[in-house]
């Protein structure tokens, strides 16, 4: 019995040992399989699995910093952004194509055929409508269409619509500046999209950013212009009224501070709405004040007078014989406007009465070379330096290329083409004591509400002496008091200026038109301590065409309102000075 028990114990032990060996082998195999699997997951599939896991718990959130805001000099907004959404489709995810096309075209007000065509595309991303109005997108989202997606985008918006549109310019579909300030300051104004990686939970809710926020460096610059909304509006309003009244082709007006070169207003008529610039013909997008050049006509005569006075070759009271209205140079007959027959006139009267022959006589006294030199010194024939794209430098022939008639023609503003900005800068130099200032349209760059860079006034050069400037101011005052510019006079404020009526050159007939004119008035006020230089040019007015009748009244209205706005009282007003204490 005991032997049997011993045998049983031995067999049991052998059995146990065998089983232990089997289990050990199994455990070893299991361990080896586990290690192999771990090696496969951790080494071979490492990158793929890390990417998969990141995709599960990380998401990218986009933050849009739209284009910088454009302000006027008093920080009134002229251009800003509005958040919109763009609609796209992934045609492969659309099940009911007919119904989707119907809903999309009805909600987004699109051509059904175009939408159907897009839905039939084999691409995986097709734009349906960029920058749709918010209410359209909200309505579309309610329908819960499959395969339709939305992208948040910024749209440029000009809240003042036509105001200063030719200066501001406009942007394209991708918010790139295409014209005006928007184009010139694209690098500073352009928007940016900041992508931030966020952790998210199992339900897809964002928890926290993986990296810290770095917003401050990504914000764009805002830009303050020198334009003044009120003066700009006043200028546009009166210019437009006159252009419509005289059924003119177009009109331009510039208002400038003669001491700093700051432009307070730059108006072009006809206007356009930059919010939907595509609905307007391309020619109205152009800022003619900088991009087009015109024969200035008689408003150029102060330049001849300035050259003569500054060179000491003539004095305001010196007399010149005006040939009783008939003068011939070579075979060309030159006469006076309205067939005036002036005899002897002082230099003051030549300018005041706008005698062409008198201007020729003064120019002849100055001589070709010095006259050309002064024209260049006043900034004609070169770009003014204004920070706007597409500036023309006008047309000024090299003095060597002048013919026998050139000196005479240029003296009364023909055979030379100047941009309105050149003309207003030149008169500003006469008004401010003789310094040519660089015209400026930008006031400062702003970031996060703080001024980062302020653009300072730049003096280009001294053109004439202060004495010459004072003499010219007196001459130009007489134009408004007793000469051709009476309609520019303001009650209680001295005005200095010059009228101009230039015949337009017809390129087809190669001659000056007898029916088409550019009527102008350029002046400044108050004459003895000028705050504003204003140029008004009206292209091809119908009926009357004299600058004194067509352009001078616009100058008067703009000057009257702008000076009142700038707190420059007239001598007819009651003025009180109150002590705050």
């Amino acid at each position, binding site marked *: 019995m005991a032997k049997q028990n011993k045998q049983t114990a031995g067999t049991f032990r052998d059995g146990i040992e065998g089983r232990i060996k089997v289990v050990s082998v199994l455990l070893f195999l299991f361990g080896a399989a586990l290690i192999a699997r771990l090696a496969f997951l951790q080494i071979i599939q490492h990158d793929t699995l890390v990417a998969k896991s990141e995709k599960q718990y990380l998401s990218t959130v986009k933050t849009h910093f739209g284009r910088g805001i454009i302000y006027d000099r008093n920080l009134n907004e002229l251009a800003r952004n509005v958040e919109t959404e763009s609609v796209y489709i992934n045609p492969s995810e659309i099940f009911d194509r007919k119904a989707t096309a119907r809903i999309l075209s009805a909600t987004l007000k699109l051509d059904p055929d175009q939408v159907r065509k897009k839905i039939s595309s084999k691409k995986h991303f097709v734009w349906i409508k960029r920058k749709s109005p918010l209410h359209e997108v909200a309505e579309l989202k309610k329908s819960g269409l499959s395969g339709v997606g939305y992208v948040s985008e910024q749209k440029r918006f000009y809240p003042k619509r*036509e105001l200063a549109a030719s200066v501001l310019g406009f942007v394209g579909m991708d918010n790139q500046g295409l014209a005006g300030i928007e184009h010139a300051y694209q690098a500073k104004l352009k928007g940016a999209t900041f992508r931030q990686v966020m952790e998210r939970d199992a339900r897809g809710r964002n928890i926290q950013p993986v990296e810290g926020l770095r917003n401050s460096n990504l914000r764009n610059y805002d830009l303050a212009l020198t334009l003044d909304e009120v003066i700009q509006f006043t200028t546009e309003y009166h210019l437009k009224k006159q252009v419509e009244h005289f059924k003119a082709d177009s009109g331009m007006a510039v208002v400038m501070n003669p001491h700093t070169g700051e432009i307070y207003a730059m108006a072009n008529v006809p206007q356009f709405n930059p919010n939907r610039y595509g609905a307007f013909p391309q020619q109205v997008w152009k800022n003619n004040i900088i991009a087009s050049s015109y024969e200035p006509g008689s408003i150029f005569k102060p330049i001849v007078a300035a050259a003569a006075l500054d060179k000491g070759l003539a004095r305001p009271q010196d007399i010149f014989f005006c040939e009783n209205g008939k003068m011939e140079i070579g075979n060309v007959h030159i006469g006076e406007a309205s067939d005036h027959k002036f005899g002897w006139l002082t230099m003051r009267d030549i300018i005041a009465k706008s005698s062409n022959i008198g201007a020729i006589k003064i120019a002849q006294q100055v001589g070709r070379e010095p006259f050309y030199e002064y024209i260049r010194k006043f900034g004609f024939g070169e770009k003014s330096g204004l920070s706007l794209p597409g500036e023309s430098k006008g047309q000024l022939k090299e003095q060597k290329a002048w013919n026998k008639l050139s000196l005479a023609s240029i003296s009364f503003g023909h055979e030379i083409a100047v941009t309105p900005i050149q003309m207003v800068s030149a008169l500003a130099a006469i008004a401010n004591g003789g310094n040519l200032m660089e015209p400026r349209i930008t006031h400062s760059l702003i970031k996060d509400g703080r001024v980062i860079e302020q653009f300072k006034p730049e003096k280009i050069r001294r053109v004439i002496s202060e004495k010459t400037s004072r003499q010219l101011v007196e001459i130009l005052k007489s134009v408004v008091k007793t000469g051709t510019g009476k309609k520019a006079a303001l009650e209680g404020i001295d005005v200095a200026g010059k009228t101009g009526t230039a015949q337009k050159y017809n390129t087809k007939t190669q001659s000056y038109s007898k029916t088409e004119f550019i009527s102008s008035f350029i002046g400044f006020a108050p004459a003895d301590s000028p705050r504003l230089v204003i140029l008004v040019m009206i292209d091809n007015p119908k009926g009357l065409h004299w600058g004194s009748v067509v352009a001078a009244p616009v100058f008067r209205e703009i000057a009257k309102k702008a000076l009142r706005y700038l707190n420059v009282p007239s001598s007819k007003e009651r003025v009180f000075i109150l002590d705050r204490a």
Partner: protein
Amino acid sequence: MFDGVNKLAKSWLHVSSKDLWMAISISILFMLGALALVWPNVKKIKLAYEYQDLAREHRVLLKENRLLNLERESLRSLDRVHRLAKSEVGMKEPGVGKIITIFLK
């Protein structure tokens, strides 16, 4: 309670009561440690959710603010103000004699 634990140690677990107390203490310390480790994280996540909710609300309010600003700027358009002043309110521009300029010193 102490008797109960001692009884449990001797009759059920066949260990000395000292050992059981030691095990319980270590367990409690371990749990406290784990809690100390996890609690700030839970709090952080909770705060992150709250922050995200507030950030979302902030974005919505900013959007609304921008739209309202836009509307205000459009309504302040001088063209519109001028038209309303003349046609609806019947305002006229004052003549030179009717203007008094006051400068404050």
